[in-house]
């Protein structure tokens, strides 16, 4: 039944273009702390949305709500036009009605974490084939071939049988990107993918992400790399204490910021 619904939404894609990510009026509270105060954001196909903002402004929380790693307090989230069915649970937050729906939707969103979070007991190639084989039920051979191609693309083909612990941060993050691509996601979510890296390793990871952006991938990217955001993003969203303070094309945001907070933020970063 779940697959039938999935097929129905997929086939509708041929007629009207589906919106990969559509978030409406999202609120999130951690107890008394009101972290997200009504955020709406749409990412159309091929959009690269850069989320910027100070520490604690709620960027990670917002990203984690999109794939339900965090349960929002209110609001709605739709992926590829399919709204995640939610209902209030005992904690006062919105919990998914149907876990299987969330799992299915999660396989269309791939997340790249600040601290890579590769599975340390698996080699790189195993990390990349893990989800295709054990969640998406792709035949092992096919998954392996695809994984090898992806590791090749991120420049880690030679390291495919190495364990993550023996790689540099930059290599681990590139492997994490290959793992994300392996599920052939509709949307890539990046949470500060270069913040945990030594400065000399940032470039290699950004190069891979830039490559993906040029491929026309839909991405939502939390970053502190303003120069990169300016070059790669199609849309920039500035978050301040849980609200969208300002948004627009990168030229406008970085070239002529309206709000004083954004001006100060941009200056503080440079």
């Amino acid at each position, binding site marked *: 039944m779940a697959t039938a619904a999935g097929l129905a939404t997929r086939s509708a894609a041929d007629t009207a273009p589906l919106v990969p990510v559509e978030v409406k009026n999202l609120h999130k509270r951690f107890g008394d702390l009101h972290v997200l105060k009504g955020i709406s954001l749409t990412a159309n196909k091929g959009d690269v949305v850069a989320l910027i903002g100070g520490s604690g402004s709620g960027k990670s929380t917002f990203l984690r709500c999109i794939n339900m790693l965090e349960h929002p307090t209110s609001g709605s989230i739709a992926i590829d036009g399919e709204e995640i069915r939610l209902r209030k649970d005992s904690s006062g937050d919105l919990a998914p009605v149907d876990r299987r729906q969330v799992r299915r939707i999660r396989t269309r*969103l791939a*997340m790249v974490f600040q601290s890579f*979070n*590769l*599975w*340390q*007991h698996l*080699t790189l190639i195993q990390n990349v084939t893990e989800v295709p084989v054990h969640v998406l039920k792709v035949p092992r051979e096919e998954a392996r071939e695809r994984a090898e191609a992806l590791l090749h693309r991120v420049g880690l083909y030679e390291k495919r049988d190495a*364990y993550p612990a023996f790689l540099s941060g930059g290599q681990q993050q590139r492997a994490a990107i290959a793992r994300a691509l392996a599920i052939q996601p509709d949307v890539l979510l990046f949470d500060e993918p270069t913040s945990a890296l030594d400065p000399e390793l940032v470039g290699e990871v950004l190069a891979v992400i830039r490559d993906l952006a040029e491929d026309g991938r839909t991405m939502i990217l939390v970053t502190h790399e303003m120069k990169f955001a300016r070059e790669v993003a199609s849309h920039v969203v500035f978050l301040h204490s849980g609200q969208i303070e300002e948004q627009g094309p990168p030229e406008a945001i970085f070239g002529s910021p309206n709000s004083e907070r954004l001006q100060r933020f941009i200056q503080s970063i440079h």
Partner: protein
Amino acid sequence: MSDALPEEIAAPHLPSASTTRSEFLKPHRIVLALIGVGLIVAAAMTLRWDWLPKYGDLILAGLWMTVLLLVVTSILGFLIAVPVGLAQVTGPRIFAWPAATFCTIIRGTPLLLQIWLLYYGLGSLFPFIPEIRQSFLWPYLRQAWPYGVLALTLSYAGYEGEVMRGAFAGVPKGEIEAARAFGMGRFTLLRRIWLPRAFQRVLPTLVGETVLQLKSTPLVATITISELYAVFARVRQDTYIVYEPLLLLALMYLVLTAILVYLFRLLENRLTPKSR
């Protein structure tokens, strides 16, 4: 003498898999090995071993029983320890609390007491329950070994349940979260990520725990199970020879321990990530 024994006997059995032959044959090791051989020869020449042929078969049977008890109870115990550990880490309180209580009770009471409670307690209760007397299990429940197996299994489960709790909790949150973020269901996540990760972390501890389990097996001799120790107790009773049987018994436990440690090391080498 008994202090010196473990060194020479255990050491030659425990090369780490990476040791090469030349590293292995270091001068001090050769000297120790020679001393060991000397001691064994001296023991063989000067002490009384004439009882040995007569009890050979019994000793082998006892050895087999001990190995069987160790393997069966460790595996069963571990299978119980996994949910016991997991329940304490993520379970709802109705599971977490009994699991924690179970660990506390098992770890907080002497194993000997547990064995006796099961054997004399349960074992003497069962004959009064007609359903059990008539069931197909009764022929087994009349014997001692089910109680010994149960007690040793629960003991291992209690200690390892606590160890697994720590191991599960110690797996980095980010790795679990990544699995969830990629749409893994709970069971797949446990089977593919959480459990293997926890097991890998726990393996070094598990060696020691299993050696302790081996050395707990003689306790079931008190409920008439003829494992290794029970056989030697009988030899001593029959022959009035005290020292030699005990010496041989100690040697056999040492060798068993060495084999156990070696097997675990093989496993560890297979499961631990290596650079290449």
